[in-house]
């Protein structure tokens, strides 16, 4: 029985009823990895021994007749910008090539505490800056649906691993769409929770006010299970929310009757691929046929979201990345004095896109430009947030494409960073507003490439998103 492409909830039942063992399951995943990883390149580090040890532990528990947790014994993998104690954490950067954290990220620790089986660490764009994994300092990940194409990014490894059967579910991080866009390109479910739902402690910061950890899964049910495992207040993260965490599996109910879903006109204008637009219109019709009400609405400041995002995120990143200086951890390139050493280290070990964003960020923060760039962007962020607040007075959810087009070819956009940035138009407003958003597959285009829609919810209302996404999934 091929196990690698099953969902976590299916596998949980098979484990609990002793139809399969965790050891068997783990072996199956690794044999799948051995088969396809050469072509996909989702991983930066594999942790076979650790995985085997955990599987053994879980099997002993099951053989003793104990009940196991929902994600116990399920093989999963972690984006390599989430710290794992004793396991190399690189952020796909040469500057952290040999960095071994002495501590665990909270989200990872919660999965590990549940005895989820950690298969390895996943590729990404260096420090999560990019939308294709082409900015990885080590290698580019390939889209399992078409190896000539990118898996998206920055959580490209996380999406490709799930799509390619190399992990049952994965954790990614989303600063401007880095979970949802690769989920869309790879045909899997990707969820960015409300800012503060999941602790950021141990997530290597890109842009602190935008970053959020979330799951990439095979279906909406698995998504709810992973959210159950990783959400919650953390005293190590002052921005994590104290709001009670509901049992998200309770929202796995196929019912959208009376639900008001907004369709913002600004997301269906210039640059959007015709096939994508048709797919989303069809999703809207589907929801309508299931009993939801579709309401056209406007988010008037959408056009300013990319500019706002590409000033705020680089500014925060410029300071967040100052710590990589060769002094107390990470790579060091020697120099005659400490300034030269720091400059050599950063110049040689950071990739081009990271350096570009540091430059933009420091320019936007520097004396004389702060008001015109950084402060201006913070003010426009207020306007973008207000757009959503206003919209949610009339609707429960907002439906948009996740991306303006399906997965593009490797190398297609690398020469034009701005063109690459404009790809994020549907996802960045959600991060700027701190809201939850999901990407759900909705068929393929004429090239058999996955397409996806995005549902945006009110702050802390992941439940309505899960309910609607689950309803759509069940209706297929």
């Amino acid at each position, binding site marked *: 029985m091929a196990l690698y492409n099953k969902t976590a909830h299916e596998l949980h039942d098979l484990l609990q009823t002793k139809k399969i063992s965790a050891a068997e399951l783990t072996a199956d995943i690794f044999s799948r990895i051995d088969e396809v990883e050469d072509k996909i390149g989702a991983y930066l580090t594999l942790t076979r021994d650790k995985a085997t040890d955990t599987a053994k532990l879980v099997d002993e528990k099951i053989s003793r007749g104990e009940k196991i947790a929902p994600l116990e014994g399920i093989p999963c993998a972690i984006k390599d910008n989430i710290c794992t104690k004793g396991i190399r954490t690189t952020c796909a950067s040469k500057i952290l090539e040999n960095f071994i*954290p002495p501590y665990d990220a909270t989200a990872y620790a919660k999965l590990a505490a549940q005895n989820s089986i950690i298969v390895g660490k996943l590729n990404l764009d260096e420090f999560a800056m990019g939308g294709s994994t082409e900015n990885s300092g080590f290698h580019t990940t390939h889209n399992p649906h078409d190896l000539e194409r990118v898996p998206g990014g920055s959580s490209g490894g996380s999406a490709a691993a799930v799509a390619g059967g190399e992990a049952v579910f994965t954790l990614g991080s989303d600063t401007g769409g880095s979970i949802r866009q690769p989920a869309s390109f790879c045909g899997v479910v990707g969820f960015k929770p409300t800012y503060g739902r999941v602790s*950021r402690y*141990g997530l290597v910061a890109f842009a602190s006010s935008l970053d959020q950890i979330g799951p990439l899964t095979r279906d909406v049910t698995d998504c709810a299970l992973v959210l159950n495992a990783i959400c919650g207040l953390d005293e190590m993260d002052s*921005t994590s929310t104290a709001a009670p965490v509901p049992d998200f599996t309770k929202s796995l109910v196929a019912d959208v009757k009376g639900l008001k879903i907004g369709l913002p006109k600004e997301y269906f204008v210039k640059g959007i691929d015709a096939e994508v637009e048709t797919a989303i219109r069809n999703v809207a019709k589907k929801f309508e046929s299931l009993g939801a009400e579709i309401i056209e609405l406007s988010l008037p400041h959408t056009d300013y979201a990319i500019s706002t995002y590409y000033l705020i995120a680089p*500014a925060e990143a*410029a300071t967040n990345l100052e710590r990589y200086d060769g002094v*107390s951890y990470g790579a060091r390139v020697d120099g005659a004095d400490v300034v030269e050493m720091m400059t050599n280290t950063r110049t040689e070990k950071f990739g081009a896109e990271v350096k570009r964003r540091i430059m933009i960020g420091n320019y936007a923060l520097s*004396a004389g430009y702060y008001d015109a760039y950084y402060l201006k962007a913070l003010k426009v962020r207020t306007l973008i947030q207000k757009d959503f607040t206003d919209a949610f007075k009339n609707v429960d959810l907002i439906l948009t494409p996740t991306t303006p087009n399906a997965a593009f070819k490797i190398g297609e956009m690398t020469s034009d960073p701005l063109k690459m940035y404009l790809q994020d138009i549907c996802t960045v407003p959600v991060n700027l507003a701190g809201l939850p958003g999901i990407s759900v597959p909705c068929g393929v285009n004429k090239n058999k490439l996955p397409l996806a829609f995005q549902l945006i919810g009110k702050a802390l209302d992941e439940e309505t998103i899960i309910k609607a996404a689950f309803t759509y999934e069940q209706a297929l």
Partner: protein
Amino acid sequence: MNYEAVIGLEIHSELKTATKIFCGCATTFGAEQNTHVCPVCLGLPGVLPTINKKVVEFAIKAGLATNCKINKYSKFDRKNYYYPDLPKNWQTSQYDLPIAYAGHVEIDVDGVRKTVRLTRIHMEEDAGKLVHSGTTIKDSASSNVDYNRTGVPLIEIVSEPDMHSAAEARAYMEKIKSILEYIDVSNCRMEEGNLRADINVSLRPVGSNKLGTRTEMKNINSFKALEDAINYEIERQAEVLDDGGTIIQETRTWNPEKGITQSMRSKEDAHDYRYMPEPDLPPIVTTDEEIEAFRKSLPELPDARRARLIESFGLSEYDAGIITSSRAMAEYFDAVVAGGADAKAAANWIMGDLSKNLNADNLTIENSPVDAKRLAEMIQLIAKGTISGKIAKTVFAEMWKSPAPPTQIVKDKGLVQITDTGAIEGVIDEVIAKNPKAVEEYRGGKKKALGALVGQVMKLTKGKANPQLVNQLLAKKLEA
């Protein structure tokens, strides 16, 4: 030309919390290098800061004690600059919304009271420590970094440029130290670096309102260095100006060995700190009720205490000022008075023999071998006439060495004052007999000769005879 110096101080004070400002590491001074560090204060990838509540409370108290307004909405900011003692290469500090602002304190210099305004008080983290392989930073081929001090909480107290002499700057810093000790938020141990100042000095022609170009001297950590550095800098700048030169705005270091300030560098690329709000730390919002509760929790402050000592005990302004300059001394004084001693006598003993002995043995008043209770007992022995003021000095010296009660010491050493007229008269007769010349002189109208005779009596009684009685009896005998 005659110049007026314009001086402003930025005082950094370490707060006496158990843990660092943004993590749970201990703040204990003097630990082995890099043993009080964790992922957070090492600035490892992925870590986040959390605010120590006590730091905020202490900073608010410091603000209220210096008559500041409290910002009801305050936040932290990142102050970016690269330095190896700063793991993140930014210092988490406060920029445009400091916890407290617009305060003032009173200082007294040469009997003149004046007000120094405070611009602001903000919270920030301390940096680590560099240990250089050579004797100075520049002749070291490498340096070693210890991050124990990284993240130790500081408040920075920024004054307006309201001071015009080294003495005023010193009085201001002493006042700040005293206030911080009173409200018990800092140990203020200057030798451990937990109170240090950056000084700004500029000159302008007397009568001018325009500020001159200033220089800055950083990390001054003693009162002597503060005064010396300011006096040197005033003189240096005056010479430059008199020679037709201009002052360069720069940072200078104080070299205590040579007694001069030296240019560190001309700031070719001046720091651009690129302050930005710290997104990892939620803002601090304080209500009026909370501020009032903090205000009520403050102990009596130096100025109020000083006024009370003048009012209630009739101490002089000067004495009351000295007694209240440190909270420990003021509390010691109150305890001596509470122990039954006369207030003025208590003040005199504290400022006199007690302070002299503490200085000589390099002790603080908290560790005084003579506690307030015993000093009170001893002062009462003087008041009752059991010992004379002179003998008391001997008793005090004994008390310094022995924990015995003063009565015991007086008894053991046989220091009880002789008030028995018969005994004293016996000695007087002996002295009169042995000193016919002095007696002759006295009786011849040279009243001053009496002193020498009294001295002889005291000598023979080993100082124990009651001096008033000796005077009386001797005069009576001589005139008889």
